């Protein structure tokens, strides 16, 4: 059947109506979410959007990203051809051929080649999905369907042109041969007499594929074509572990127990996920067999929103609970508690979906509204509230580590730095050795520093990541008041969790502290010549460095500990398979330090095995939790000849000998 512009127009109109209704159906659900401002610093937002959405920086971080890059840019370029096709279908007078030849011919060449590239890319994508999918469940009808539609569009594009070319002769044929190399090769298989049929069949195929695409797009995960670019524009600039504060007034709700308690941006995230699975491939919980899958959480939020949306819009209550074991559309409690808040999912996501804060919001609901949580946490919460440390040890014991040495109390004007020792550094017998090493180094470098002694309180990191925002809020306020009263400005910490909490979280409470992690401080002191190294800490053998999530991913400190180690040992540390931004968590973050790990392989064991692949003699950490997790893990895999040292201890070997 020859192209019929009336039928075409009617079908297009119908498709557009379906498209509009579908978009409205989904986007209007965003209004159910709570308000949140994501418009600050628009200049930076546009920059990030160009970098990540258009240049696809994060997509390209993985080898297969190149394939997506090709599809993405083909899509943009071919929008010209598809736009023309649609307009021409309705208004036959409109055609690119009206452009001057100098523009039209090169354009034909570009469209011809780009179509071939797109066809190749979708073929590769389909093959990859079949042979080596990113994760087994990725072989969905939806995925193959959309790839097939794109392939049909490309084939039909060639068919339309080939049909025309087959009937061409003389000069026009020469033009086609020059400017449409792919289409003219396809035309070689078409007899001149068949040209019309091939053209007409291709034309209708193209039309139907395009209509199907338009209708299907906003009802599938391929909606990311519409949402991914804005999602990059609307990305969060705040450190990923710093969640919004809660206001503790009786009329408020706490955390997220139903889908409309998320913000509109959280809901938009769920529409932006195209289920590439990169988050789950980076997630320590997913990898070690826990029921948590960050992609799954985002998917469940979307399904829950779509199921409950109509009822919620009418002011009703949700039909499907967000938390629980109700299959698709709800997140089970074990998944919620499996998160180490390591941030690997957010680092991996090409379109800046914020999985981890959504999980913590679910925790907040469980802890604050339901008071249900794994039983190990009851003691933790009570110890934190009662004695301001995770173990419930008497605060007076905070001074014990310096019973054998001279340590000053922090005093404004007398001591420059507050050494905020932290709970692990104060109470944990192994980590107290790190504290002593660091204290000796600070003295040797001639810094004036003091401690808060028994007045020091826990920073509250674990309770915040565990969703006990109420207790965190009180602890933070107490600490901020204490720091203000004592005139604290510059703070030395040896724990990345204290570091991140004091530096980032406490900013929400109106205090800007100059917090420095000991790995940075020690490096600076050596580089500035203030801390002299007597020898090199060479007898530590091959030394591998493990990135702490709260130092690395959450605060972008990757080089300082490495440089410090290089200064101390003379050689840069050996890198593990996954390092820096892609480092694998030790398993203790997000309050997991205080919980049992029953399901799957233990995260620290997985990481220890990865470290042992480098055959290190020493594994170096910069975090008390990592130190504990590695020492435990090494014992479990019976690799006790490998020792674990903190950066400060390695530095002490070189400086204090």
């Amino acid at each position, binding site marked *: 059947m020859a192209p019929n512009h009336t039928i075409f127009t009617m079908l297009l109109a119908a498709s557009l109506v379906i498209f509009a209704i579908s978009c409205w159906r989904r986007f209007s659900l965003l209004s159910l979410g709570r308000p949140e401002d994501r418009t600050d610093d628009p200049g930076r937002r546009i920059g990030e959007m160009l970098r990540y959405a258009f240049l696809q920086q994060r997509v390209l971080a993985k080898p297969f990203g190149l394939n997506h890059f090709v599809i993405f840019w083909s899509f943009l370029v071919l929008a010209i051809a598809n736009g023309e096709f649609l307009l021409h279908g309705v208004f036959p007078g409109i055609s690119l051929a009206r452009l001057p030849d100098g523009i039209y011919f090169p354009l034909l060449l570009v469209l011809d080649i780009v179509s071939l590239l797109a066809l190749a890319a979708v073929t590769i994508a389909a093959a990859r999905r079949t042979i080596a999918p990113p994760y087994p469940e990725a072989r969905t009808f939806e995925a193959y369907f959309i790839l097939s539609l794109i392939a049909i569009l490309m084939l039909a594009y060639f068919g339309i042109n080939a049909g025309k070319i087959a009937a061409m002769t003389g000069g026009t044929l020469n033009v086609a041969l020059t400017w449409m190399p792919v289409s003219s090769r396809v035309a070689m298989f078409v007899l001149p007499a068949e040209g019309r049929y091939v053209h007409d069949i291709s034309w209708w195929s193209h039309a139907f594929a395009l209509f199907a695409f338009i209708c299907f797009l906003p009802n599938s995960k391929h909606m990311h074509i519409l949402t991914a670019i804005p999602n990059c524009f609307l990305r969060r600039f705040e450190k990923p572990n710093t969640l919004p504060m809660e206001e*503790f*007034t*009786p009329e408020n709700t*706490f955390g997220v127990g139903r889908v409309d308690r998320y913000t509109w941006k959280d809901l938009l995230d769920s529409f932006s996920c195209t289920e590439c699975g990169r988050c789950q491939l980076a997630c320590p919980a997913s990898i070690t067999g826990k029921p948590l899958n960050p992609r799954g959480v985002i998917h469940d939020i979307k399904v829950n929103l779509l199921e409950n949306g109509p009822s919620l819009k009418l002011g009703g209550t949700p039909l499907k609970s967000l938390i629980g074991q109700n299959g698709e559309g709800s997140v089970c409690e074990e998944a919620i508690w499996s998160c180490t808040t390591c941030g690997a999912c957010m680092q991996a996501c090409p379109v800046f979906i914020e999985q981890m804060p959504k999980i913590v919001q679910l925790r907040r609901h469980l*802890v*604050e*509204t*339901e*008071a249900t*949580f794994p*039983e190990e946490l*009851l003691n933790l*919460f009570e110890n934190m509230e*009662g*004695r301001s440390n995770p173990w*419930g*040890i*008497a*605060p*007076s014991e905070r001074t014990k580590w310096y019973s054998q040495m001279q340590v000053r109390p922090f005093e404004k004007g007398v001591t420059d730095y507050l050494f905020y020792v932290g709970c692990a550094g104060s109470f944990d017998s192994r980590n107290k050795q790190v504290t002593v090493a660091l204290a000796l180094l600070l003295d040797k470098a001639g810094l004036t520093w003091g401690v808060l002694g028994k007045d020091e309180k826990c920073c509250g990191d674990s309770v915040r990541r565990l969703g006990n925002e*109420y207790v965190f809020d009180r602890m933070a306020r107490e600490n901020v008041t204490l720091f203000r009263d004592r005139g604290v400005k510059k703070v030395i910490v040896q724990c990345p969790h204290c570091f991140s909490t004091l530096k980032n979280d406490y900013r929400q409470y109106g205090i800007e502290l100059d917090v420095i992690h000991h790995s940075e401080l020690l490096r600076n002191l050596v580089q500035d010549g203030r801390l002299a190294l007597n020898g090199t800490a060479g007898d530590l053998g091959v030394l591998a460095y493990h990135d702490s999530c709260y130092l690395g991913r959450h605060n972008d400190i990757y080089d300082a500990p490495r440089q410090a180690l290089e200064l101390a040992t003379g050689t840069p540390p050996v890198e593990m398979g996954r390092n820096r931004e892609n480092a694998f968590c030790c398993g203790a973050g997000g309050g997991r330090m205080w919980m049992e790990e029953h399901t799957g392989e233990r995260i620290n064991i997985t990481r220890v095995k990865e470290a042992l692949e480098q055959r290190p003699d020493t594994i170096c950490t910069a975090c008390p939790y990592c130190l504990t997790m590695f020492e435990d893990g090494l014992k479990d895999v019976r690799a006790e000849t490998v020792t674990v040292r903190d950066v400060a201890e390695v530095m002490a070997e070189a400086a204090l000998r």
Partner: protein
Amino acid sequence: MLIVACIKQVPDTTQVQIDPVTNTLVRDGIPFIVNPYDTHALEESLRLKDRFGCTVAAISMGPPNAEATLKKALALGVDRAILLSDRVFGGADTLATSNVLAAAIRKLHTEYDNVGLVLCGKQTIDGDTAQVGPGIASRLGYQQLTLVDKIVDLDFSAGRIRVSRKLEGRHEIVEAPLPAMLTVVRELNRPRYPKVPMRLAAAAAPVEVWNNQVLNLEEQSIGLKGSPTWVSKIFSPERATGEILGDGYADPDGTAKLLIEKLLAKDMLPL
């Protein structure tokens, strides 16, 4: 049906130190906590409330600042929180304390049809006498069931309770008519954690304060005057000083050997 949970504010004993000069507890700046055993009594009361719909009253005798303890009980879900506080109650031993608590429960008895159960922790961690619960039972003429680790059966309409008592190396199942006073051990339950909305509501909810004008007890039976026992001295027994053997970090095997030799020499290893 009313259930009364008796709770006490105690100093956080992990943080209490004894003044070496005066041999008294240094309580300055020491945080107070709810006596840990009492938290289990409170929890069981709340579970019975959830199960039977009873009303739960938490009562505590103490100084005005013990209000904080009752606020915690409110945050956990008790219906009434009553602080028995009066200068004349001060300095009480276990006898005088149980007189005051019994009087308060008797008063509650007149307000409600029936007091079914009184629950106490088995003892407090500051006094460690384990006498106040039984004292209340005697004053009120209630059955006393001590060291309860499980309520096996409870039938308010038949007025009977059957509990398991945790004794050394064995359990005893005991049945008694109501009303009864139970003292409870930690194994009874796992206390709940307060929900934030309840904490916020508790912060605004009132704690009733009953002084002796309310209870109207004779001064001879309360406070210092009503206390036949008093503490003459508190002291920490002297600790034998130890020594650090070898260097366990550098030479664990050698240090272990050293330790075994020491223990053998002192005949402290069962061989």
